[in-house]
């Protein structure tokens, strides 16, 4: 069962060109998914520090939310972002980043998701995201 979910998740990420550009992969432990983004030069925004580009950190967390939704509510419901708010807490250093998403609510058409990203220590997050995502209704919509 979980093997199956894991395979579907890997297949989904492998098919998304932008996920490949970011270089992300997923690890699944029970129902907890962690998205992992190894450092790569192309992800840098500020070469002096150096620091990950803010847009990359945002995109990484958005991808985490979408991946978590795909395993929790199913790919068939085609989650799409409506809005996201990203808070930057620390500069993203040139090391591997991790992110986990918590689905706060799944409604008939909208899901609310919170994501946190960290590097060396989970207790020291580098950024947080909360966002709303549209979902395709389970049954054919009548409205």
């Amino acid at each position, binding site marked *: 069962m979980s093997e199956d979910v894991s395979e579907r998740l890997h297949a989904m990420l492998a098919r998304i060109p*932008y996920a490949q550009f970011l270089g992300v992969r997923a690890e699944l432990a029970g129902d907890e998914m962690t998205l992992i983004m190894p450092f790569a030069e192309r992800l840098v*925004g500020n070469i002096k520090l150096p620091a990950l580009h803010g847009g990359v950190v945002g995109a990484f967390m958005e991808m985490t939310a979408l991946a978590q939704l795909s395993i929790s509510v199913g790919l068939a419901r085609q989650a799409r972002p409506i809005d996201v708010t990203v808070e930057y807490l620390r500069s993203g250093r040139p090391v591997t980043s991790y992110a986990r998403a918590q689905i706060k609510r799944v409604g008939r058409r909208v899901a609310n998701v919170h994501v946190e990203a960290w590097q060396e220590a989970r207790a020291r997050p580098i950024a947080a995201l909360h966002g709303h995502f549209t979902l395709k209704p389970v049954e054919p919509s009548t409205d």
Partner: protein
Amino acid sequence: MTNPTPSQIDLSQQKLDTSPLSHALGFQTVAMEPSVATLKAPYKPEMVGDPDTGVIAGGVVTALLDHASGQSIFAAVGQPLSMATLDLRIDYMRAAEPGLDIYARAHCYKLTHSIAFVRAVAYDRSVDDPVATAQAAFMLNTGEPLAMPAAVPESGK
């Protein structure tokens, strides 16, 4: 704050080119006006977020809006400086049309000593039909401007 002179605006293009991400995604600065920057992300296969439709990933729009916002601050300050994004809110209005280049127009509408406030819009065909809009706040590192080329001509020197 003084408005940037054309020579100072050129520096922003140089700064843009030093970001490996914008280089990897092919971001180009197409216009710099006082406090306003317009950037273009040419459509590329690696930007796709939905392989079934060819629609680019929301994350590409995120990166472009963030980058354009930073450039608008250079345009407002008149020179490149180091900054950190505090927060970024993005509303996704519609899917970008597959195959079209994406533009982002960012306006730094308020600058304090240490903070910049920016609004930005991403679009493909027309700025009046946005793909996404953004609102962001940045912390400025005004104490240490980025190293600039030694001689910035004040006038046509």
